[in-house]
């Protein structure tokens, strides 16, 4: 029993048949092979699966694929434009804002949303904005630094 949906992912329209129980995270990873969207917890705490849905960050393991019907989705793979890394991608690389890199795509996607809302965030605003994304390696300091660097570079 499949349901037809159409989603635009990273600028490209996909017409798909999905099982109603399919999560958006699984659709992206399995059907569209966009494996940069990581899964860490299945229960919406870790944030590794964060993507943008119509420009707003969302944990794609909390969204059914059928709920994304008609939506525009941006994943980590769609962030770099014309061969140029997004300023946040540059900043995470330059500021050593990762160790294992597993939380990084979700952290960056949440960061993109955060910088949209707060172009020059304070440390407290960054910490509040990213507290739905768990990183177990870094203690967050270099991630906060990366956010500040990207905001500084953008302004």
């Amino acid at each position, binding site marked *: 029993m499949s349901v037809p949906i159409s989603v635009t992912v990273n600028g490209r329209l996909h017409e798909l048949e999905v099982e109603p129980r399919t999560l958006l995270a699984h659709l992206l990873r399995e059907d569209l092979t966009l494996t940069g969207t990581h899964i860490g917890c299945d229960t919406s705490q870790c944030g590794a699966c964060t993507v943008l849905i119509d420009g707003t960050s969302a944990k794609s393991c909390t969204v059914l694929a059928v709920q994304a019907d008609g939506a525009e989705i941006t994943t980590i793979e769609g*962030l770099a434009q014309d061969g140029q890394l997004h300023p946040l991608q540059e900043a*995470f690389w*330059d500021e050593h804002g990762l160790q*294992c890199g597993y939380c990084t795509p979700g952290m960056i996607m949440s960061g993109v949303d955060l910088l949209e809302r707060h172009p020059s965030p304070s440390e407290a605003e960054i910490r509040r904005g990213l507290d739905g994304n768990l990183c177990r390696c870094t203690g967050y300091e270099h991630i906060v630094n990366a956010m500040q660097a990207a905001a500084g570079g953008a302004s």
Partner: protein
Amino acid sequence: MVATDRPHNVVGTRPVRPDGVDKVTGRATYGGDVRFPGMLYGRILRSPHAHAIIKNIDASKALELDGVRAIVTNADFARQPDEEVALGELTANLSEMLDQVIAGTKALYRGHAIAAVAATDPHIAEDALDLIEVEYEVLDAVLDPQEAMRPGAPQLHPGMVTQEVGGLFDGETGEAGTEETNAAKHVKFTKGDLDTGFAEADIIIEREFDTGMYHQGYIETHNGTAMWKKDDRVQVWSSTQGQFEVRDQTALLCGLAPSRVTVEPVEIGGGFGGKTHVVMEPLAAILSKKTGRPVKMIMTRQEVFEGTGPTSGTHNRVKIGAKRDGTITAMDAELIFEAGAYPGSPFTAGAMCAFAPYDVDNIEVEGWDVVVNKPKVGAYRAPGAPAAEYAVESVIDEIAERLELDPLEFRLQNAAQEGTVRADGAAFGVIGNVDTLQAVQQSEHYRSELSGENRGRGVASGFWFNVGFTSAAHANVMSDGTVGLVVGSADIGGTRAALAMQFAETLGIPYESVNPQVVNTDAIGYTMVTGGSRTAFAGGWAAHEAALDIRRQLVERAAMIWECDLDAVSYEDGVLSGPDDQSFTFQEICEQLPHTGGLIQGKADVSPETSGPAFACHVVDVEVDPETGKVDILRYTAAQDVGTAVHPSYVESQIQGGVAQGIGMALHEEYVFDDSGNMENPTLLDYRMPTTFDLPMLDVLLVEVANPGHPYGVRGVGEIPIVPPLAAVANAIHDAMGVRVTQLPATPDRMLELLEEQGG
């Protein structure tokens, strides 16, 4: 030993990581990302009981479900001998290793794997689990290690007696008990005479402490994919810290020679010790053998909590005596560590670390390894040390307070230094214990005034061994002056960069000219697990030796081209110099290689025995909310002897990550079990790891006491930072509120109880 006394060009700088672009663009391939034509998906049926005899497994209905291709149980594996083998930072018994991967005659904890299914779709595999019928005879479970040690307690392994063991890698000493018990192992280290020491003391404090069972909490769940081919060769993809350990263990359990298993490199989403042994790989392999198709398995988060190896819950008693002048005269400890379902907790490491920061004449420390109906524990960052040193550093703090001594002065007065002999008999070489204490003492943080109600400051020290062991490196020199550096160490947090930097330094070429690659187990010499804080140390040493091999060959080539003796050629900072002011830059000689005899490769295998022990001292300020019991971290500074900081930003980040996990142990995290052994909080909502909001910026003081046992003075840095935070936070809580925290984590409800007792 030091490779060169000139200032370093690469070591000590902060270049970007070679794997950075792949990891910020989503292109990096982690174990769960691999995919093959015809691939099947595996899922695991797990025991709903903490202790039960498995009387029968009937998979016939599940096998009839459309899309199900195979089901395996313990019976599909060859029997294993009752024999002990090395297992990363720990050891394991082969027969127990098989039963741990998939339960034999008994389920010994809730979540114990009972059967594994392979199906064409993960949902079908999941549905099939409900159709497997298992008949259990449920037994009484024992969850508390002290209860488990009592005569008459439910026995996990009938016939088990206590085995006496030696040091960390010394194995069994031969003596075994005669009474059946859940206390699997016992160790005792003695130095001097306790009675004499306590008789000299003016003050003696004895306390007991408990710590919870904690999980490493890597964000990537376990995965394993296997392809068993028609020629009985097996390919495995697994997010692991040790691909050679996965190769060897998978081969052992599948009845193959290790050479028939190839473990392919994939990125790993965190490990912290928890990804050093096989979990699902042998199941995927046997499912693949049965079906002739590749099989991929990925755990859910609940499976990670219930079915992998967290750290031991512990109960520890510490007794310390000191003279009025601040001299410690005797130290005594008994550590009781939960092993989980099978023996093998880090009780020995805990016992060896407990009093290591102190130079005291009379010490006795014993440890117990006790099986209980909980997941078999694994390694977790400095295994055993955080719990042991939490107990010791809390009592140290209390004695300093009672003697009205500054806690750092008290520690300095009794600090272990070069030549100090530990209770286990080992003598320290050059160590930075005193240096880290002084770094905190002189820090702006420690000298600053802390004001405000319900606020307090605490300090604590810690020790961890670090290990050396085997690493290999190959280096392929290209004609354009770049080098492919080939290693077998999983890059868990900067390995590629740290090894490439030491390689570039020795060869005198830019870091950017080195292209580090992690390759499969057939393409590089045996390389032990990325763990034990060993990789930058031993892997860096192998990279250094491989660079020296290239230097030797380049000198030979230049001598051949210049038609001179080898002695007439020198190599310095990437430039070859010969007679008559002739010279080649590294780039120039590389361009010459193809038509002067061919390109060259360097290689090295190392097994250093000098490990470079690590010490750290931390200071923390906390504020306690007396209404809610919540403890906030206001400020944190960690001083650590890092030997030589190869990449200071990575070293800082390792320390910050370790501190964050230690704060989690101190305040937030813990397995909560009901009376039947069900984990009540197997999600990341209820198992509460620190978020951005729980932590301030974590200040780091890098103390560089070069390790004389390494070409660049490197000491391992990854594990020690998790050791001091538990006691530092507990001591700060005492300073703030006057209550001694003897059970961690100090959750709000426990804090309220303590404050209420104090008020009453």
